[in-house]
């Protein structure tokens, strides 16, 4: 399940990165921020959220367990 979650998050994020619909859009968000730049700033925030999700649901617990078993943890 963990591996699939990582693959799914990567796939969704890669698709979202290709915002072709904003390629020729120069609308200003909040009166000063170009739409394409605002979108990718939002993308960075979403990336932080995706990392939080992966840390919560796909953290490699077995690495710590393995070290603890060997007395190195």
């Amino acid at each position, binding site marked *: 399940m963990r591996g699939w979650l*990582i693959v799914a998050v990567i796939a969704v994020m890669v698709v979202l990165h290709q915002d072709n619909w904003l390629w020729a859009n120069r609308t200003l968000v909040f009166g*000063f921020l170009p739409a394409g730049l605002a979108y990718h700033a939002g993308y960075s925030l979403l990336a932080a959220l995706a990392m939080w999700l992966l840390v919560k649901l796909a953290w490699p617990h077995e690495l710590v367990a393995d070290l603890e078993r060997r007395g*190195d943890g």
Partner: protein
Amino acid sequence: MLPTIIVGVYLAIVLYIGIFAFRRGKAASSEDYFLASRSLGPWVFLLSLFGTNMTAFAILGSSGMAYQRGIGVYGLMASSSSLIIPLTILIVGTRLWALGKRFGHMTQVQYLRDRWQCNVLGTALFVLTAAMLVPYIVIGVMGGGEVMEALSMRDVAVVKNGVTSTVREPLIGYSLGGAIVALVVMSYVFFGGMRGTAWVNSFQTILFLCFGSIAFIFISKSLGGFDAIMQKMSVDPKLGSLLQRQPRIGKEEFFSYMFIPLSAIMFPHIAIMCMTAEKIGHFKKTVIAYPLCIMAIWLPSVFLGVIAASQFPGLSEGQANDVILRMLQTHTPTLMAGILGAGIMACVMASDSQILALGTMFTQDIVVHYTKGADGKSRLADSTVAWTGRLFVVAIGVVSWLVAVALKDKEGIFELAIRFAFTGFAALAPVMIAALFWKRSTATAAFMAVVWVAATMIGTWVLQSHSDAFAPKPGQAPVAIFQSLGGMFLRGPKTVTIFGYLPVMPMCLGSALIMVIGSLITKPPAQHIIDKYFPPKPTPGAVAA
């Protein structure tokens, strides 16, 4: 004069931090010198890992590129990195940390050499990696010399034929500035090792994380806000296209740029830094905060680079790299310009961890490896290993400065080499991923992938040099390098592309394919090696017993 004094104070603080760290460490231990005894706390780990990966390009280069290519630069380089880099730290970095803790590895080469029981592979990887790292160190010294020269400019009265005139001259010239920066970096890396470098990096990261926001606020205040400028730019026939991606960035180029951040985890200084965390839990804060840190630096830099196009129109490509300095000098008070200049210096001095990484690799992958006795341990005393690393750091510092002075006007060569290095490190990522996650992967396949990466880098370099003579100007359409092959190899203003995609994409895919096919057709690794690196998971019953 004031900016020079501020930068001087900054360099003194940095030196103090490094030497203070030296006093806290166990000076004689090689693990302490190279890895800070694997004891970095969560915040120092986050800040130093992030700072290690940010170079002068994050502020100077990104704004210069945004000046020329518009807002798309953020999506091209920053937002893709905000996903891929923390992801690789989570997936690969945590495993490198655990393996280092278990088997005592200090470098990627040590791990890969042992994982596949292959000396030749390790040495080939060392040579390739070191060759790709050296340009960074040289360009760091060059950048230091240039920033010192630019910040120390003053008016000097000159009398010629009885007539007095004023000329602008630097108080500290390029060679001296480069020497000062190299000496400071060399000193704290020499004394403080990884602990000193990590603390200095943390301090520098805080400085340049604040840099963007402070510059944004001051420049906005000076210009009376950005709304009017942006509205004017959006209807300007020439500048309006900077607020969108069409036609300055192609969709194929935009997509293939997503492969570049794969390089991060293959950079020796990043991989080695991953082994310095005290606990695996320290990675959690790092991977979550990483995208936010990228945004804090890149968003204001790209935005101000675009704004600069309306303030200083018509700059050449070389001049565009200074736009952020021009904006600061024009729109901020002298004191603030000096403080922000120190922030830029913090970025320029990111070569410290690369110098230490090269020293670590040389001592561990070459000196320690080739002095091993029958018991598998080096015949050299541990303190001798640490001092070898220190002396190597001094040698790299001196040689880098000599090269930087001798090739002052050839900066373009090193900048090109760095672009190639990003591609090369990214194309090596499948080798590391196969080593960590695929039991069946073999040394022969890994060696073939390394040869593929080296050969394709040389091939791209040849294509680049061959097409320099007819490269199109910025804004012009790419041209076919070989007419008979149509659009297969295209030459843009700066780079060669393959069907419009950057070479990094076919190189990465090729490297992954070679790993898969090469592993399947060659003899699998010995069972005891598989058991060592992929221990069977204990069953619940066995744990209870």
